């Protein structure tokens, strides 16, 4: 240390390091019920109650009917069942909470009871549950058995070609629904046509929506381009509702309007929206959301998109925020609503919080796990970045495989994706040309096919999309025109797929609760009801589905490892020659260090995990030993492949009593004759980061020990890499190749090693 004075730190440096982590970009809010920042309970939440007089509600949640706001009135008239309420409201909340996690109480019984419960009662019940209980209850209570998922497909330029390619890509990954929206409102029609065409590439059945202004959204639906809507927002306080420019009656009217045009619809609600709109009435987030959900059931919509949609980020700032989001999803499914369970707006910059947020939903399953998984890159998401995005899609695929959980997606190989993207772009190009909307150039199309995001494209810009969009709207182009154009230009498979989807509309089958299309069939809570009653019931991965989920890319096999080794064999043969000298005997030269190599060393395996040719490793060890003044002798072990025993066996043969154990994968140890097997002198356990210079110094140290000295041990520096995750699969396969060659009691074999001239 120098004499010059350094400033005395007044802070543990770790805090400064923590300041730099993405987590610290998240801001957290103190619990403050008065100002709306309370997840589960506020002193202003009413006590649950319901009173009736001749079949009409006279008071609800401690409020007499005369004081009801519009939301109370609507819930009291259309949700609360006077036949069930006296029974349900009288049950202790804790008892009902236990029923929710009791696998012997069927879902149908709980759904019946919910019809007689007020918002405050529903909120009070679920507040008794821990996070794991909520997740379990959710998995038991969700309406449809088979889980699904929804994607956002948007881009920063409103480029229809990219929209089509990305829609086809999302469909290939297995999303059951795709949702688009625009940077420029007028581009709705262009987006809708592009996504409709893109989603018909590869397979059929993906439902599609274009989030825009209500009247426009219905018109686009009536033209046949979209099949569902989910932006019908409801709020938990009257003032928020009115500021949202609607009432329960206007929204319920709209719900009937959508159904009358054969369009599936769900509402949107979720914690935090009232807080963001400034009218929270000092109520807890959960209570307000319980009101929204009772209202939705009352309106007769089949489902909801909730779990803090745009309000998720603010909800995640309060204690228990993420648990609250799960709890409100649970109330939704308990009320028998389809649930597109949020996991939508990105609530954090911390990848750990992202992973933690998604896990309960992934393992519990959900009608739509994300109500907008960003299938595109973050910057292309016109709704704003999602919890999970194009960047992280593979992480999600691996999570499915890790937990053997059906998250609704399926890995797709690279060639297939390229084919689908090309096909989608060509199909949309043909439609644009055929309908005289635009003439995309081959260069535009090509730039889109391989593009990860709109930064990579040389294609349409928002203004171009506007011209296309206005023309579609003004000329009254419908899905029938698009189907004809596809067929005429030879895209009959896509034409057929699109037709099959719009044809479904006639029966209205997909208007029922939790409907999606799988394998050409409508699957809903009616014909695929969640029948969970404990292990062995409910949704289980079929063998076929499991095989799909586990088939991620770049999976190592033993054959692949051996193939990789064989590539190095020829080069190694030019660098080194191993000649057997028969059984090895103990030496008596006090300056001798024995290097004990593993059974497959230089026979089936030719390089370390770090990529060093084994000849180079031996050369360095031998050079180090010689520089230290000792002599090296090489012995191949046949009775063991374990580093410690290789080293100890070598030490017992060495005249100096010092041996080096060396596995083909590069793990090395210095051992001494009279030590316990796992109590060595020096060990290089991190073979992937062990460099040749380390082996040379190890050789020199072995020589030093041979002369009874105590050298400075060689430390291979590590920066804490997740070495195991990178190498363990390969290492285990390599090691199995070694252990297969071992024979119990086999004698060590003396080997004469000649290093040949070839380098590199």
């Amino acid at each position, binding site marked *: 240390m120098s004499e010059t004075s350094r400033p005395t730190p007044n802070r543990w440096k770790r805090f400064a390091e923590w300041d730099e982590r993405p987590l610290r970009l998240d801001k957290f809010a103190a619990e403050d019920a008065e100002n709306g920042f309370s997840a589960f309970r506020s002193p202003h939440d009413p006590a649950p109650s319901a009173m009736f007089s001749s079949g009409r509600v006279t008071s609800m949640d401690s409020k007499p009917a005369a004081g009801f*706001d*519009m939301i109370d009135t609507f819930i009291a008239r*259309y*949700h609360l069942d006077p036949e069930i309420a006296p029974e349900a409201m009288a049950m202790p909340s804790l008892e009902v909470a236990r029923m929710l996690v009791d696998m012997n109480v069927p879902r*149908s019984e709980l759904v*019946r009871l919910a019809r007689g419960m007020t918002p405050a009662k529903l909120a009070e019940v679920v507040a008794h549950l821990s996070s794991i209980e909520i997740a379990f209850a959710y998995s038991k209570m969700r309406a449809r058995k088979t889980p699904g998922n929804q994607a956002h497909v948007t881009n920063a330029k409103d480029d229809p070609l990219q929209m089509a390619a990305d829609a086809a890509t999302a469909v290939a990954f297995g999303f059951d629904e795709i949702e688009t929206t625009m940077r420029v409102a007028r581009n709705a029609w262009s987006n809708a046509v592009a996504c409709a065409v893109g989603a018909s590439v590869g397979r059929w059945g993906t439902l599609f929506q274009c989030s825009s202004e*209500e*009247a426009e959204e*219905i*018109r686009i639906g*009536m*033209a*046949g381009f979209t099949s569902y809507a989910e932006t019908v927002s409801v709020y938990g306080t*009257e003032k928020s509702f*009115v500021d949202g*420019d*609607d*009432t329960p*009656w*206007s929204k*319920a*009217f*709209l719900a*009937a*309007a959508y*159904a*009358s*045009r*054969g369009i599936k619809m769900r509402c949107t609600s979720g914690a935090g929206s009232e807080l963001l709109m400034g009218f929270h009435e000092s109520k807890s987030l959960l209570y307000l959301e319980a009101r929204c959900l009772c209202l939705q*059931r*009352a*309106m*007769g*919509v089949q489902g909801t998109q909730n779990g803090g949609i745009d309000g998720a980020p603010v909800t995640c700032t309060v204690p228990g925020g993420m648990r609250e989001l799960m709890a409100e999803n649970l109330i939704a499914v308990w009320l028998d609503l389809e649930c597109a369970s949020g996991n939508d707006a990105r609530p954090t910059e911390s990848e750990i919080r992202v992973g933690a947020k998604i896990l309960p939903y992934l393992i519990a399953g959900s009608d739509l796990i994300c109500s907008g998984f960003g299938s595109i890159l973050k910057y292309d998401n016109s709704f704003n970045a999602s919890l999970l995005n194009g960047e992280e899609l593979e992480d999600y695929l691996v999570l499915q495989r890790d937990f053997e959980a059906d998250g609704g997606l399926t890995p797709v190989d690279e060639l297939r994706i390229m084919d689908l993207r090309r096909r989608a772009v060509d199909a949309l190009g043909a439609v644009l040309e055929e309908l005289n909307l635009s003439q995309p150039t081959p260069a535009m199309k090509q730039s889109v096919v391989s593009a990860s995001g709109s930064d990579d494209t040389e294609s349409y810009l928002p203004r171009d999309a506007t011209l296309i969009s206005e023309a579609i709207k003004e000329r009254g182009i*419908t*899905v*029938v025109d698009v*189907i*004809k154009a596809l*067929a*005429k230009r030879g895209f*009959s498979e896509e*034409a057929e797929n699109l*037709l099959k989807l*719009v*044809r479904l*509309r*006639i*029966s*209205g*089958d997909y*208007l*029922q*609760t939790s409907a999606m299309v799988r394998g050409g*069939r*409508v699957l*809903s*809570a*009616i*014909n695929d009801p969640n029948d969970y009653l404990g292990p062995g019931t409910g949704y289980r991965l079929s063998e076929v589905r499991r095989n799909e989920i586990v088939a991620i890319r770049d999976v190592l096999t033993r054959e692949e490892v051996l193939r990789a080794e064989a590539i190095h064999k020829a080069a190694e043969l030019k660098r080194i020659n191993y000649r057997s000298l028969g059984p090895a005997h103990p030496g008596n030269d006090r300056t001798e260090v024995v290097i004990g190599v593993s059974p497959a060393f230089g026979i089936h395996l030719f390089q370390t995990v770090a990529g060093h040719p084994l000849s180079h490793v031996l050369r360095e060890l031998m050079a180090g030993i010689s520089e230290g003044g000792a002599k090296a002798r090489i012995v191949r072990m046949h009775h063991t492949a374990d580093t410690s025993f290789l080293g100890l066996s070598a030490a017992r043969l060495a005249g100096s009593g010092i041996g080096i154990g060396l596995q083909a994968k590069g793990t090395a140890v210095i051992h001494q004759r009279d030590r316990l097997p796992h109590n060595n002198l020096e060990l290089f356990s991190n073979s992937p980061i062990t460099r040749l210079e380390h082996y040379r110094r190890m050789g020199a140290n072995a020589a030093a020990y041979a002369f009874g000295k105590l050298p400075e041990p060689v430390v291979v520096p590590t920066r804490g890499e997740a070495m195991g995750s990178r190498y363990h699969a390969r290492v285990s396969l390599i090691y199995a190749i070694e252990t297969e060659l071992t024979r119990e009691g086999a004698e060590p074999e003396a080997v004469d090693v000649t290093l040949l001239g070839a380098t590199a």
Partner: protein
Amino acid sequence: MTEKLTIHDYPLAEKRPDLVRGKRGKSPDDITLASVIDGEITMEDLRITATALLQQAEIARAASRDTLAANFERAAEMVAVPEDTMMRVYELLRPGRATSKTVLLDAARELQERYSATRLAEFVTEAADVYEQRGLFKNRF
């Protein structure tokens, strides 16, 4: 229909194709790519009918989803309501659009008299009463 539909009739397109017809009477089997190319199919053939919505309402009720069934029943009435009228009434139901109760009651009467939409008319009338109580008949912008 005499027998009520049950959950076993669902999905109708699969289990009861005999019941599934578009607005001009075409069955899904008639709606093929060839017939689209020949120009025999228009958007009208791809629209849902009031009958289909009432059938889905029966199924929803059989599945103990009374409120969903009621929505399908309102929707069945709405099928006959032209888009412009539908969107105009929706607009009137938004806060502050109708500046007096009469405007909503007129809309309700129109739904009843021109489209025999009894349920929708009742629904709009109910809204008019609630809006009056909650003071929503005032200009907001």
